[in-house]
């Protein structure tokens, strides 16, 4: 695992990981991950080359590549135009660009903010 210039932990596109992945910092995945990803309080970005087969639990999730698995985001999910997502999405807010592909459920759970 290398660190991106922005300070983001990064999984490069030649990297393959199988198993449970957890952490307490933002993560950029441009490689392949099979298993599960837990980043509570932090964000996951699946880059354009990323191929993730995992359930994802994070604060925010941005998908530009392919993600097979359910997404549980406490804050926000963004599907960019190149995103291909097969799985259910549960989040507070969602943004989907024209051209993104989704096979699955979108469930928006509202949290009252005062």
């Amino acid at each position: 695992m290398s660190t991106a210039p922005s300070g983001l932990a990064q999984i490069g596109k030649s990297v393959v990981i199988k198993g449970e992945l957890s952490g307490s910092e933002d993560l950029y995945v441009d490689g392949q991950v099979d298993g599960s990803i837990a980043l509570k309080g932090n964000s996951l970005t699946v880059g354009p080359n990323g191929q993730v087969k995992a359930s994802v639990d994070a604060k925010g999730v941005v998908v530009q590549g392919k993600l097979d698995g359910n997404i549980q985001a406490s804050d926000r999910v963004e599907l960019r135009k190149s995103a291909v997502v097969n799985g259910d999405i549960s989040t507070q807010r969602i943004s989907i660009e024209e051209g993104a592909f989704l096979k699955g459920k979108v469930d928006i759970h509202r949290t009252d903010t005062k």
Partner: protein
Amino acid sequence: MSSVSQNFMKFFRGSSGPEVTPAQSSQKLTRRSSGLAELSRSWESAEGLCILDLGSTSPTNIRHFTERGHKIYSEDLLTASTDPDLLTKDEQGNTVLDSRKFLTDNLVYPAAQFDVIFCWNLPDYLDESLVKPVVGRLWSVLKPGGMLLAFFHTRDAGPDSPCHRFHIIGGDVLEMQKIELRRESRRGPTGAVHTAVSDGFQLQRVFNNRHIENLFRDFASIKFFLARDSIREVLVVR
């Protein structure tokens, strides 16, 4: 059916996970929909509905329903029907699609899950071998009393009959977006990316009223709305 092989000349997917660039489209038209108007009364007055959209992923539709507190499921059956793994031979040796495999991979939901299903123009463009099995599955996943909206061409405008995506932009207004270009790519054994481009889906047939009634004969009721643009809207209730 020749359309099967035609479609597969245009569409392909690698088993290792395709990189799909969903339909690129430009032309947008709006149309009033009487079927949608009737259907929309149900989601304006109800909470927490479970809705299934069988068209291309539509951010507009997802936003429309999630803003109202409903759950929406998105599943693009037409694109799913282009999976080359579905190709098989029938008893006469003709190339057909394996409807059993199709329903193993798609529309996999518990019985009576949905309050509303948007079929859009799916039956007009779906391969013949899949239409009845798909409608049968839709019956089973729709709740008793649940409603399904489908559109049918009233006449064959030939290969120029465009396949549209539908976006809900009002209680009775749809934005129709022509699917003009679809591009899919996959990595070959050498790692090179191969790309196929097609000009969209072709109209497979024109259903008349009797065909449509037959197609939905297991449902409790069926209502027809004839529009000016040669589209017959059908609202069925399970």
